[in-house]
């Protein structure tokens, strides 16, 4: 993948504001559905950072779940193993739980599909609520987030990426060739 840095789209404080806003919307969303004890799962890497923030704010009792979906991607043999592949870790019983699944950016929807496939290999949840920091255009599957920090239309050749975890930044880069989309 060849990418040239283009510009910083949002700095840490702005991203924290988005997360605070998402927390409020998520609380209402869960309350409306009478979900009082959700379990949170974040997708490596950016999704896990956002999930950690939500996990703290919602004061969840269960440990934060982490998913690395490398081996569940439908394009595994094209994209292959992420060089920073990490073990998935879910230390609570998924069966009949209301799961909040968190990612940083949703684009194609393929990452979320892979993540849901992996979650079902841990058990059969009662429900999955999808939360993303950024929802951008480019969906290839009928998967939509329930709670979003920011909806952002971007030209197809532009790519938005969250960096962190101590200081968050959203960067927009211009793609010069085809690269995996989330």
């Amino acid at each position, binding site marked *: 993948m060849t990418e040239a840095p283009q510009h910083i789209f949002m700095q840490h404080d702005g991203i924290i504001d988005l997360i605070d806003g998402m927390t409020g919307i998520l609380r209402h969303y869960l309350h409306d559905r009478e979900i009082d004890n959700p379990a949170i799962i974040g997708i490596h890497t950016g999704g896990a950072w956002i999930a950690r923030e939500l996990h703290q704010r919602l004061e969840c009792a269960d440990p934060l779940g982490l998913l690395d979906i490398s081996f*569940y991607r439908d394009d595994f*043999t094209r994209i*292959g*193993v992420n060089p920073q592949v990490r073990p998935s*870790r879910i230390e609570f019983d998924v069966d009949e739980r209301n799961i909040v699944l968190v990612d940083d950016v949703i684009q194609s929807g393929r990452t979320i599909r892979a993540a849901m496939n992996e979650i079902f290999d841990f058990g059969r949840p009662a429900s999955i609520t999808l939360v993303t920091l950024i929802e951008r255009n480019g969906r290839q599957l009928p998967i939509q987030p329930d709670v979003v920090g920011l909806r952002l239309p971007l030209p197809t050749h532009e790519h938005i990426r969250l960096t962190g975890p101590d200081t968050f930044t959203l960067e927009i880069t211009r793609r010069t060739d085809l690269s995996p989309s989330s």
Partner: protein
Amino acid sequence: MATDRRQNIQLTPDGRLRHFLTIEGLSRELLTHILDIAESFAALPGRPVKKVPALRGRIITNLFFENSTRTRTTFELAAKRLSADVLNFNVSTSATAKGETLLDTLRNIEAMHSEMFVVRHSQSGAAHFIARHAAPGVSVINAGDGRHAHPTQAMLDMFTIRRHKGDFTPLRVAIVGDILHSRVARSQILALNTLGVTEVRVVGPRTLIPTEARALGVHVYHDLDEGLRDVDVVIMLRLQKERMDGALLPSESEYFRLYGLTNKRLEAAKPDAIVMHPGPMNRGVEMDSEVADGPRSVILQQVSYGIAVRMAVMSLCMQTHAEEREEA
């Protein structure tokens, strides 16, 4: 140990793993990457569904010219946990026994669209031979060739060591027993040195340590108590009686008296030293049962980690070929 990618048929020109034939010529970064990927798979046994869909629809063939139930089973389980389909070819029942050449057997299995061969053979170099003649897009994994190499066994041993000790750098490791006939020992020595341990020792009778051992970057000991002093890891090797041509050993009881591991002798090692054995183990010959079943033994963990490490190697090789197809 130089890494010459032009000479190393295991690697693509840009250093990705295409076949896994030997530890020789592989970088520390690549070995570490294999161990990191294996970490992801090591957690699978604790999950209700113990497999991932990564290699769904792919065919992997176990081509075993030499019997080994445990190695074949763990490769088969590794492939199945990656959701691949598995063919098992056993030479004693296959067409090779009826006169078909190895290359004809290879072409026939390739025609069945198998994309990976896991090869075990009594001849050193057999896996290299098959890799050189395999069709483009087909990976070969060496599951043991003669006295030459058994790289996945070495990597599962490295994985076990890392799980217990963390960093390789400060470690002193003693490999005890029949070094001469051991493809496992050769691969272990290469892996330990590549991963940067402080010291690798080989311990055994003069008749079972090859004369060129020092050239592999090890310290040679013939006295077990000296060889075990202050080591962090003890790897006991099986006495390969089936490979011994002459009178290399006086007797098994004499061997146990001199080189058998007991709790008493283990006192020379560090208090938190772990004891490993690649199996199958001869109790009362290489090791006393009190050690094999004792708290410092990690022998059964080695078997489970073997599945995770083989999954890592299979997924990396399969991915490289898929990327090459994509690029073409």
